[in-house]
């Protein structure tokens, strides 16, 4: 009960899933805890070794000294593994009124609401899911959670796992490597185009919103897949740290799009490492929307290894009271005729802070390459802040690198015009903010962008209920 009260106070759109874990490790992290996780999961020796080695690296690595304030993370106060119950006994009627209203206003479909609210731990449309899975299977596509993949496709997993983001990469990648749980594994065979976006929360079982997800996507030559994770509806979690690792391999001529809509409750540190490798003529697109969390540090990157490869990052960051969104992108050009584009839109409000942090690197030999970076920031009031930290390292002459950034407030004339047409000021503000992020929202699946628009309106109009 106490928790629900604290929740109302801190995060009015959130909700608590009553925690009734069947099994969980003790608070804190040690090599014993890591070994225990591996033991519970009944993993092969190589994975256990990998976890233990990663743990050693995690201990040795120092915390990043840049970006947001990480000083309040206490690694000893976190439960690193919890096995959830199969059935939740919460009922829709018992949910707090304001949460139901939030869902109504965002327009989350009934089935999803129940799932999100923990009313049904299993997706109500399990039957639909099954038929989708059969359809995928017929095409040779593998789509399952990472734990299953380690069990059932060990040789495939071993070939790619952690080769793009080794545990040495950074402290949080090392932590994830040691204690990872859940996440998705996607394998698309040569030439197969997946017409339906694969959605993380379309999978059954409760591991969907894990704390330390590990996702691996392999798109073979000439294939296409669109993967969607997260959802616009707020996710309340008592976990204070979310640290995922996502590795994507885009083979020759393949195309992968990875869409994230993140709306963690405002007590979460969201520290994620995402990286993709694009081979010859491959296309990798990250669409990244960050709305929630206390602090997000996330820089999806594309390593353009093959001639003619293309990388793209479209991102939206929204920081309200007490939030810091330190997000951006990295594009590393290693081959000729590669191109990249980064479009970043950020909004800060009520004392929130948004930072764009990005890297563009053109290696010698990456001739005839082009880079375009555009960062626009809106600051909605005088308490808020916006930063831009782009890094450009160019070691090649036959390139075109462009970067531009603007910071401004909502146009007073536009607001005046809209209000003179009888639109309430708050609605007009919502309209302008939604217009500002439109170049990105039009790229995400329709149901998400509609929800996102409504959510922005909700944030702009202050409170709900």
């Amino acid at each position: 009960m106490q928790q629900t009260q604290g929740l109302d106070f801190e995060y009015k759109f959130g909700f608590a899933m009553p925690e009734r874990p069947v099994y969980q490790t003790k608070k804190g992290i040690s090599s014993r805890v890591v070994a225990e996780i591996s033991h519970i999961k009944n993993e092969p020796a190589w994975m256990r070794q990998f976890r233990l080695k990663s743990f050693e690296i995690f201990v040795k690595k120092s915390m990043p000294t840049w970006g947001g304030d990480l000083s309040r993370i206490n690694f000893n106060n976190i439960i690193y593994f919890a096995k959830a119950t199969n059935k939740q006994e919460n009922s829709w009627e018992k949910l707090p009124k304001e949460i139901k209203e939030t869902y109504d206003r965002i327009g989350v479909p009934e089935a999803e609401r129940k799932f999100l609210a923990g009313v049904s731990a299993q997706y109500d449309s399990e039957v639909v899911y099954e038929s989708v899975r059969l359809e995928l299977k017929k095409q040779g596509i593998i789509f399952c959670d990472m734990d299953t993949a380690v069990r059932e496709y060990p040789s495939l997993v071993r070939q790619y796992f952690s080769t793009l983001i080794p545990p040495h990469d950074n402290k949080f990648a090392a932590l994830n490597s040691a204690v990872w749980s859940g996440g998705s594994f996607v394998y698309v065979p040569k030439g197969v185009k997946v017409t339906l976006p694969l959605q993380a929360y379309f999978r059954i079982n409760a591991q969907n919103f894990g704390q330390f997800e590990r996702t691996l996507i392999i798109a073979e030559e000439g294939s296409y897949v669109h993967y969607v994770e997260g959802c616009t509806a707020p996710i309340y979690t008592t976990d204070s740290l979310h640290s995922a690792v996502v590795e994507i391999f885009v083979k020759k001529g393949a195309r992968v799009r990875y869409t994230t809509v993140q709306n963690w409750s405002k007590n979460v540190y969201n520290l994620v490492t995402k990286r993709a490798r694009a081979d010859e003529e491959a296309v990798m697109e990250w669409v990244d929307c960050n709305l929630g969390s206390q602090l997000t540090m996330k820089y999806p990157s594309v390593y353009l290894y093959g001639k003619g490869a293309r990388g793209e990052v479209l991102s939206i960051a929204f920081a309200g009271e007490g939030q810091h969104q330190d997000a951006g992108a990295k594009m590393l050009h290693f081959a000729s005729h590669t191109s990249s584009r980064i479009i970043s839109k950020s909004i800060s409000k009520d004392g929130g802070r948004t930072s764009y942090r990005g890297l563009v690197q053109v290696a010698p030999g990456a001739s005839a390459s082009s880079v375009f970076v555009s960062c626009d920031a809106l600051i909605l009031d005088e308490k808020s802040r916006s930063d831009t930290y782009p890094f450009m390292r160019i070691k090649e002459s036959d390139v075109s690198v462009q970067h531009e950034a603007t910071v401004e407030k909502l146009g007073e004339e536009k607001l005046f015009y809209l209000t003179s047409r009888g639109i309430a000021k708050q609605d007009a503000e919502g309209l302008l903010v939604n217009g500002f992020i439109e170049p990105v929202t039009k790229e995400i699946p329709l149901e998400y962008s509609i929800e996102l628009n409504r959510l922005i309106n909700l944030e702009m109009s202050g409170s709900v209920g």
Partner: protein
Amino acid sequence: MYFIDVSKEKKEKYVVEKQGKYVFFLHNISGKIYIEIQKPNTEVYIFGLFIGRNNDVFKLETVQHHRAGNSFSNLLIKGVFFDRSKFIYEGLIRIEKKAQKSHAYQKNQNLVMSKDCFVDSRPFLEILANDVFCTHGSTTGGLNEEQLYFLQSRGLEKAQAAELLVRGFVDDLLGKMRDLKVNQLPEVSYLLHLRGGRL
């Protein structure tokens, strides 16, 4: 109008305390230039020109720090890099909370003439006020192939065409300074260290 040739004064910190127009000029120098704007109704222009030859290495850091509102600053750094020269630039615009209605601009354009050059450009913004206009831009690349082709199609040698484009690139900056009534500017050929009149 106050004209400050930073390359000669070699000071690190400049405080703008009086109303008026200030023009700063830097040419081929490394180091940090910190400009603090403490008064409203001030206009600050910063022009920097860097020509890298052989093993030249320039490390430049600029700060446009707006501590007072209704102030204006505009920075333009242009660089042309030959041979194995290196340019490492970090520019920061910082606008404090109380410096509302500030306008701050920052632009860095680099022309890379050789495969062995290295350009590192970091144009940073830290904006703590909301009622401001702030933009920055950075471009790095080689000479425009189409422009080169156009000039060659008009009968110029490739080297001549390249020289014309580089001169134009540099003269654009000088022209902006002339517009602000800065006289006694060096010649483009001198600035470019032309070898026997050629690039």
